[in-house]
């Protein structure tokens, strides 16, 4: 059967079960959009910026576990999607991005809107393809989805020149593909798993350190069983939140730079670290040479390069987390060691002491400025029974959300970890909402981050994606200001965002709903109101601009040396003056 490249493209998406794609057209992809326009199986969500499309694909993928798809044009369309590609590569998010390219005979000629798409994306994709012949298109798309979804997931880019989309070719979509240079290992090595079992039986102060890999591998049940069987405390990275129930008695919450006191102390003083689908990022290890100095390390990961990249590993297990945990559990059960749990009592006593010493708390005096932690806590209280999906941007609000919004299920937490991409939150929320129209999707944003992709409010309104955006508005790049307070004597260089925009008016301009709270007493009201409306909502919450996020391990510090509160020697900077003409309605900052 002969089809045009554009028809083949759409046919392939259908065979892959893709229901929704995110994109923005341009000259060389018009043919593809034209074909998409004439069918109903694949929904196209028109975004306002290609970065929005890329992050929406990521949000879709993270929430569903299925590949997210974006379609953009050549040149600037492609370059705009680079940030989401890098983001997805860092956080192992399976997305497939299709880019248009100038016709094959013009490639290399500096043609209009030509960019070296495969060259630009080579270092930030798991793999990429330039399709030179329409007859290869089906095979390539199959391989693209296969590579994105298998092994350690990641972004794949397929560059389609205009003539390939226009020309007719033979449609061939293989049922399965095999690539001789690509054979991910799923089964863990039995001998190593046996070593792990022995180490677990012997350990007196063990800790489980879970990363995002546990979520990609759908291993939450196996993880829960493993932890309950062994009664070992669980630390989660930012990416792993939800992989293990945050409210479970074995959970110590998030670890790392802004992790809980107990979680960081526990990993530091442990004698056995069981790392599961994690990659020992520097935001987790702190100073590598002082990371868990007395511990043996078991590392389970599907990507061999993650193992021994940053820290020494005693028992490496390359394999799929879910498969390995099953095997591990079976072997643990076969070699019972009834005493282990008993012998770890002192360890738990120690952990409970740490928990009691510095729990995650905050104070909210009723007549003081709104504390950002209080806002998160209240959103959590109002929504926890609704099983919401929560996305965040990047900064203090992200860390407060990670600390105070308790997640009990996987794929409910959308955040940019490895790259720390401001502007990720809102489009990611839209991607998740597009996948689950009936679910409650919340976005916890900073005023700085939100402004990086706020154009996508139009996408939300037009496509009836009723996300609830809560902006913790501190009129600062808050996380930057925090570092300036702590390490730059309070000089607020380029971190003050002034008093604009008015987010309520902005919401109204987009024909969305805008709400605002400036006092503690108003917080509950606006949250309830936001949850009632069946439209996209922006809630502007004027929070204490000088609140700092703790605990904090200073970059390069060791995990047991956390700052718990503003240090006495910290120098607070001066309140910046507003530069917005004739205005000083910045009441919050003056307060």
């Amino acid at each position, binding site marked *: 059967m002969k089809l045009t490249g554009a028809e083949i493209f759409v046919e392939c998406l259908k065979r892959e079960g893709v229901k929704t794609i995110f994109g923005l057209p341009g000259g060389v992809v018009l043919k593809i959009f034209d074909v998409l326009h004439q069918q109903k199986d694949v929904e196209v969500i028109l975004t306002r910026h290609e970065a929005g499309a890329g992050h929406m694909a990521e949000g879709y993928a993270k929430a569903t576990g299925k590949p997210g798809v974006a379609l953009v044009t050549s040149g600037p369309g492609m370059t705009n999607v680079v940030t989401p590609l890098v983001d997805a590569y860092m956080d192992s998010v399976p997305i497939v991005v299709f880019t248009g390219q100038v016709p094959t005979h013009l490639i290399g000629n500096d043609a209009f809107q030509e960019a070296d798409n495969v060259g630009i994306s080579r270092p930030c994709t798991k793999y990429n393809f330039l399709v030179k012949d329409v007859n290869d298109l089906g095979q390539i798309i199959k391989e693209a989805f296969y590579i994105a979804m298998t092994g350690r997931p990641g972004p794949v880019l397929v560059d389609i020149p205009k003539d390939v989309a226009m020309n007719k070719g033979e449609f061939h979509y293989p049922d399965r593909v095999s690539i*001789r240079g690509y054979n991910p290992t799923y089964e863990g090595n039995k001998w190593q798993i046996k070593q792990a079992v022995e180490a677990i039986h012997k350990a007196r102060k063990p800790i489980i350190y879970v990363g995002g890999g546990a979520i990609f591998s759908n291993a939450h049940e196996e993880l829960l069983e493993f932890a309950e069987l062994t009664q070992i405390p669980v630390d989660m990275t930012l990416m792993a939140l939800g992989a293990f129930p945050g409210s479970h008695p074995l959970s110590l919450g998030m670890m790392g730079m802004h992790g809980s006191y107990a979680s960081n102390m526990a990993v530091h003083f442990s004698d056995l670290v069981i790392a599961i689908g994690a990659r020992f990022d520097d935001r987790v290890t702190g100073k590598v040479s002082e990371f868990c100095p007395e511990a043996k390390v078991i590392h389970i990961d599907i990507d061999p390069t993650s193992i021994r990249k940053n820290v020494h590993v005693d028992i490496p297990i390359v394999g799929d987390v879910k498969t390995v945990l099953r095997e591990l559990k079976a072997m643990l059960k076969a070699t019972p060691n009834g005493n282990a749990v008993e012998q770890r009592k002192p360890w738990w006593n120690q952990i409970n002491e740490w928990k009691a010493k510095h729990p995650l708390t905050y104070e909210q005096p009723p007549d003081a400025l709104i504390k950002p932690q209080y806002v998160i806590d209240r959103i959590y209280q109002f929504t926890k029974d609704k099983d919401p999906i929560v996305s965040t941007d990047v900064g203090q609000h992200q860390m407060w959300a990670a600390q105070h919004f308790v997640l009990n299920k996987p794929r409910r937490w959308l955040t940019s970890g490895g790259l720390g991409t401001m502007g990720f939150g809102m489009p990611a929320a839209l991607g998740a909402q597009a996948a689950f129209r009936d679910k409650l999707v919340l976005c916890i944003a900073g005023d700085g981050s939100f402004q990086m992709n706020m154009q996508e409010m139009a996408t939300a309104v037009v496509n009836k994606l009723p996300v609830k955006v809560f902006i913790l508005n501190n009129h600062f790049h808050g996380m930057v200001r925090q570092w300036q307070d702590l390490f730059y004597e309070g000089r607020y260089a380029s971190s003050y965002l002034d008093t604009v925009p008015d987010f309520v008016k902005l919401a109204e301009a987009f024909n969305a709903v805008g709400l605002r709270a400036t006092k503690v007493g108003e917080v509950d009201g606006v949250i309830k109101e936001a949850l009632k409306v069946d439209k996209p909502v922006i809630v502007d919450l004027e929070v204490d601009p000088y609140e700092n996020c703790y605990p904090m391990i200073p970059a390069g510090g060791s995990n047991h040396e956390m700052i718990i509160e503003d240090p006495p020697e910290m120098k607070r900077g001066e309140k910046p003056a507003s530069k917005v003409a004739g205005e000083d309605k910045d009441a919050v900052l003056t307060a």
Partner: protein
Amino acid sequence: MEHIISVLVENKFGVLSRVANLFSGRGYNIETLSVAPTLDPSMSMMTIVTRGDDKIIEQIVKQLNKVIDVIKVVDLNESEFVERETALIKIHTRQEDRAEALRIADIFRGKVVDSTPTTYTIEVTGDVRKVEACINLLQPLGLKDLVRTGRVAIAREPVRQAAAQPKRILKEEK
């Protein structure tokens, strides 16, 4: 420490850049690199000479294996191997030096591959020490130009296995 790594790759567009990107992106050094198709024209063999401690070399080998177009990676330092490099050395020769140049070439079993009244181009092949020794001796005569292929290397066949059936090359078992 110096390592010679053989990398069997798909013979297709962009592969060299994937491998080169990996080294530059992660801050590893490439000292020499040579690439050519293998007996099976769908594959190429790259020989990469690099440097690093055990930890870095372990990462390099793993990272190379992770590249989807890479079919097999062998760190040749893990066994016995033979290596060769070829240099083409163009030297200025005054009349009185021409005999000396030929003598040096001869010592290293080099060949004169081009000659003019004032120059010789000498081809020399051998392990890297031999090639460098030859260059060093020729240099005082007046080096005009020099190109080197970079090193290629191949594992020595263990004597016992040599008699057995030839094995197919498979992707490294992980």
